[in-house]
């Protein structure tokens, strides 16, 4: 059983919904980014997705795109993200998913990447632009290192694909709430609930709903039929507003607490 499996088991046992927080590694600097990660974990995030910045993040909206740019100009890359996780592991046990685009991971080399990630304390990978059809060169290394490969399902996927990715992946299923790029939204359209229920019923993996969730109320609504909510851009906006300032981690901490409270 992986750390991610254990986290969902614990959540289910306690009747809570999970909170997955996304932050971009190195945003705005490696040191500040570590403080934000720790703040999110201390405030009760169940799993943290650490985003490895990429120069051409085509699945991201303006908020995470800007975070990627800040992170890249602070010198962040795959090795830096692993170093960040290693430091975080010195103090925290919260499961970490390395989140990113295929190319930087590929350049590092899947086999050494998975070994180094395991050593650094990474628990799983989520590769935005790697559908399961192309996962052949990454998946064996991920499995061999005992890491999870988090699959994605989109509103356009259709149930046959949802079942296929559910079988191919492990850890949890990331259910993309709406067609589009990442970014905060004020509301999620009504079909999301019905669709989430359908997916949750048909799959074996825990389901985490993400894209657009920006408030405790939205997180609660999104998890009515799912196991967890993913909150990304709304957290990144706090980093964007506060930068390296000491008030940033405190503000993130308050926000994460409010989200988690809505999920209990």
């Amino acid at each position, binding site marked *: 059983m992986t750390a991610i499996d254990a986290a969902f088991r614990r959540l289910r046992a306690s009747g809570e919904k999970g909170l997955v927080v996304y932050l971009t590694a190195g945003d705005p600097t490696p040191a500040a980014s570590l403080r934000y990660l720790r703040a999110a974990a201390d405030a009760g995030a169940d799993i943290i997705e650490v985003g490895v910045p990429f120069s*051409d993040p*085509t699945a991201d909206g303006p908020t995470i795109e800007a975070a990627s740019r800040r992170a890249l100009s602070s010198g962040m890359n795959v090795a830096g993200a692993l170093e960040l996780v290693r430091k975080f592991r010195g103090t925290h046990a919260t499961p970490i998913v390395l989140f990113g685009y*295929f*190319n930087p991971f590929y350049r590092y080399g899947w086999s050494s990447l998975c070994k180094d990630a395991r050593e650094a304390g990474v628990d799983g990978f989520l590769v935005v*632009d790697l*559908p399961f059809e192309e996962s052949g060169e990454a998946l064996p290394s991920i499995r061999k290192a005992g890491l999870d490969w988090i699959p994605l399902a*989109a509103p*356009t996927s259709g149930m046959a*694909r949802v079942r296929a990715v559910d079988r191919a992946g492990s850890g949890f299923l990331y259910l993309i709430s709406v067609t589009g790029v990442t970014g905060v939204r004020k509301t999620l359209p009504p079909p999301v609930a019905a669709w989430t229920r359908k997916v949750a019923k048909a799959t074996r993996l825990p389901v985490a709903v993400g894209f657009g969730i920006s408030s405790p109320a939205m997180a609660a609504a999104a998890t009515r039929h799912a196991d967890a909510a993913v909150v990304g851009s709304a957290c990144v906006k706090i980093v964007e507003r506060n930068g390296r300032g000491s008030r940033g981690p405190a503000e993130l901490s308050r926000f994460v607490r409010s989200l988690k409270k809505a999920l209990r």
Partner: protein
Amino acid sequence: MAKRKGNRMPDPAGHFGSFGGRYVAETLMSALIELEKAYRKAWGDRSFHRELDGLLKSYAGRPTPLYFAGRLTEKAGGARIYIKREDLAHTGSHKINNTLGQGLLARRMGKRRVIAETGAGQHGVATATVCARMGIPCEIYMGEEDVRRQSHNVFRMRLLGARVNPVTSGSRTLKDAMNEALRDWVTNVRTTYYLIGSTAGPHPYPEMVRDFQSVIGREALPQFRKAEGKLPTAVVACVGGGSNAMGIFTSFLRYPGVRLYGVEAGGLGLSSGKHGATLSRGKVGVLHGSKSFLLQDATGQILEAHSISAGLDYPGVGPEHAWLKETGRAEYVSVTDAQALSGFSLLSLYEGIQPALESSHAVAFAYRLAKKMRSSETVLVNLSGRGDKDMGILMEMGEGGRDGD
């Protein structure tokens, strides 16, 4: 009508050897599968070809002529130089071959909106043209730098009723326009057709765009045979994403005696680091949905390309070219900004043909190649487009009347 025998490449999952494939967000997967099915159905349907061939003839002006460049040949003093005149196609470049094909496909698929990326603006103009003809609204993404340097084409697109969205991220060129078009598509995927303009992007685009462009080679081969009674010694085309090059290469692939040359943007010179010579200097990676060579740093971040020609200013290249390079079937070379300007001048002054700056790269290399060849040998150049759009850049560069030797 030419035979439409299926090409063996790519495999059913869109792989050209280890290149190509479909590296996209899950949200786009179903749309790509739907597109692939629709494309296969259309390509196997006589009525689709009847309509497409009719339009290529009556609307786009095909077949384009093959021209013997006598004075250029004389000046080079080597191989005989022939030019396939894609510059004479409607809208001024080969791009119309692909936009007509995909435009018909979009209509068959019942899509109500078309989006496209453009670099030089030729693909944008060709897309806007086809959309105007079909009465489908279209939006074009174009990097702000390209909007500036190809303003002539921006004006044309707007006059054709298209909306042009300048893109301000990254290097503000073709790569960034494609990023933004992908973001639009992932958001509006159910209603929108994404009309990619080169043999790049996720499967089935590299295959489909090649097939639509392969009309160039299907015409050029018999035209050349008729003129010379044999096949050309060498075929030369410029390579941005690679569509005009695949368009002319495809018919010649099965003749191993015909040398194929793809000419990339050498920019300020390969050692300057400011170039678009992806196949010469890039490393394997994934950008915009397929695996190919890329300009990237050691940590996998994409580098900015540089070229005087917006259409070659791209850090990626179509996966089939990566495969042709790997197998050695085609050779890839580069031509600098300055050499391309010389190519432009040569063709202007010796033949009265003003090529697009993209195509000028092919001309410059073909001339250099022809010089070293025997007079019994021949070079066929694909002149992908005309230079009207580049007058602004040429004026900025203070070009005029050099003979470019």
